[in-house]
């Protein structure tokens, strides 16, 4: 279980406060107005923003003392998810476990219709294509916690349908604990088990 209790993060001198619990294998959608602190919450879980008090436990162990590279977390940022100077294939290989079956990756590429792009550079891709590549890598990495920051924002309705389906299927099959920031009601419906609304009461 991911247990967050009275976690306080300073953002621009303003304290943000979070309390929530997510069961192992659960998919949680986080909603709320812009600027309410959704990304900050994900950053804090991933170790990119530091909490000054409160609790952040995973399976009973605190994560707060760990650096970003030590946490059991795979995160999809809003942007800069790909190294622009490396090919898509190289980008995908980063952070994936060597034991990941080739077929799993191939089927993900096929499902999300990006298998043709492997030899290209990120600059040659559209925003939606980049987002799908990054999504695949984030979910297939061997981390139990997955954080997605507006993962489907740049997708057309067709791709969106496929991406949401694949995300839910993959997360459930691998028992991932998934937190997803989104503004779209359909995303919540199609992917999440549960949704919370951050209200920004400090």
């Amino acid at each position, binding site marked *: 279980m991911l247990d967050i209790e009275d976690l306080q993060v300073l953002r621009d001198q303003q304290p943000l406060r979070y309390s929530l619990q997510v069961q192992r294998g659960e998919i949680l959608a986080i909603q709320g107005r812009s600027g309410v602190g959704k990304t900050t919450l994900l950053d804090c879980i*991933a*170790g*990119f923003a530091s909490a000054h008090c409160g609790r952040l436990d995973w399976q009973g162990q605190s994560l707060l003392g760990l*650096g*970003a*590279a030590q946490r059991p*977390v*795979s*995160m999809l*940022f809003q942007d*800069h*998810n790909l*190294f*622009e*100077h*490396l090919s898509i294939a190289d980008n995908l290989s*980063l*952070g994936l476990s060597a034991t990941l079956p080739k077929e799993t990756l191939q089927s993900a590429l096929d499902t999300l219709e990006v298998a043709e792009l492997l030899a290209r550079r*990120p*600059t040659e891709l559209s925003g939606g294509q980049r987002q799908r590549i990054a999504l695949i890598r984030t979910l297939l*990495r061997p981390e139990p916690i997955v954080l997605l920051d507006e993962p489907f924002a740049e997708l057309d309705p067709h791709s969106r349908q496929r991406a949401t389906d694949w995300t839910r299927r993959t997360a459930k099959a691998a028992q991932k604990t998934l937190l997803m920031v989104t503004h779209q009601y359909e995303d919540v419906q199609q992917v999440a088990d549960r949704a919370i609304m951050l209200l920004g009461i400090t």
Partner: protein
Amino acid sequence: MLAAGMLALGFSLAVTVLAFYGLIGFDSSGTESRLDTRLLSDGYFHSVVWFSIKQAGLSALLALVLAWPVARALYYSPGLWLRQSFLSLCVLSFVMPTLILITGLVALLGRQGLISPWLGQDWNLYGLPGILIAHVYLNLPFAIRVQLLQLQHIPDSSWKLAAQLKLGAWQRLRLIEWPALRAGMLQLFGFVFVLCFNSFAVVLALGGGPRATTLEVAIYQSLKYDFNIPEALTLAWTQLLIAGSLFLLLNRLGGNQWLGVDSTQQHWTPKPGAAMQRLHRLLYATAALALLLPLLALVPGVLQVNLARFDWLAIARPAFITLLIAAIAGTGALLLAYATLLPSRFARTEGRNTLALLCDWLSTHALVAPAMVVSVGLYILLLPRLDLDHWGMLFVVLLNMVLILPYAVQQLRPRLLQFDRQYERLVRSLKLGFQERLRIEWPYMRRACITSFALMLLLAMGDVAIFSIFGTSDWTTLPWLIYGYAGTYRMGEASVASLLLLLICALVVWLFQHFEKGQQDA
């Protein structure tokens, strides 16, 4: 990884510290070498400090201001004729050995200079004009390159947005161009200021008399002719304090460089109007001519030498040694620069900006530490302990490496910072190890590394100061040979050898430009 970085930083610091230790600890007359504080109230000392600051400030200001329109012309008109060669010429001018520069400028602007007749009766190269011309010649090309690079970091999206919002020329300048240049400008000013502040032979040769005396001259005199170590130390600390604090201040004011992410490769810049394009071409041609003329002015002098009787073989070995030393020192400096940058990058990602700034300053401190003091200090420290007639060349390489380190750091840092800004979170999130990290950074850094290596090579190839102290005559380098020729009436041979050195430098620039282009296309 961090440990390696600390070690590298410690090494470059240790060289300076040991040098000062060598000077402070040296005891020739039974009295300890203390500071000579009487000097601080000496009127001569004040005028020297003031002149050093004045000429360096003016030189830096002129170089930056004059470089700006040329950099803009290059930025807005990518199709200029021989643009890439011009940029290579800029590198060459920046590393021009003083011997060649002085000869070239005098051949051009001296009393019998080729263009002096057009400059009017009152024209006199010697004095502040000469110093400024020489310093601008050395540093303007460098400033052009840096400013151009900064302009090129403006993301396309900014220009597209500017076009959408129908911003006028002034607004574009104020809202887009200036923010891209501002931070870099301060740092560039500091950099050029320090280079001119430490200038020596140019100042004396073209300065016209003792009015034009820099701290570096005073240090040379006290260390070499008077062997007055307390005085030398006082002067060295003064120099370190002034240049060092200014450098630190400007770095701090400049803050983090404003660097866009290179997410797109198609460059969309606003097309200037026809009149503006003509102006750009004119500016470009003027700058190219100004850089080329002092070099072309050397040719008549060389033609006077009987080239058939010239001993080409005598030059081959020194030329080879020069390249070899420069290659080792250059490689070392690049590796050292990468390592010394690790602590500051680490501090920056941790959000500890003051610490990062300190690390940055430390990694470039050799720029402000007087070179003469560092080499002589080490010489004093090592000579009684080590057979320097035997190991001297090792220290020639080592000291060259340490003294060009700041340039290597300056070259690599912006690119590494850009990498960190764009990808540090991703790298950490992907839990990449050191090797994997290097594997990813290398393709990103490759071009910067190649360009920097060329620059390191050229800088190390021009050294005479270190060689004059640690070098051994069995391993004479080409620049030292040139000074040897010039010091024994053989001005003709010296100018031929100089031109040859220049040609080798040009060849290096050309080769690397080619190589770089190949990398770009790949």
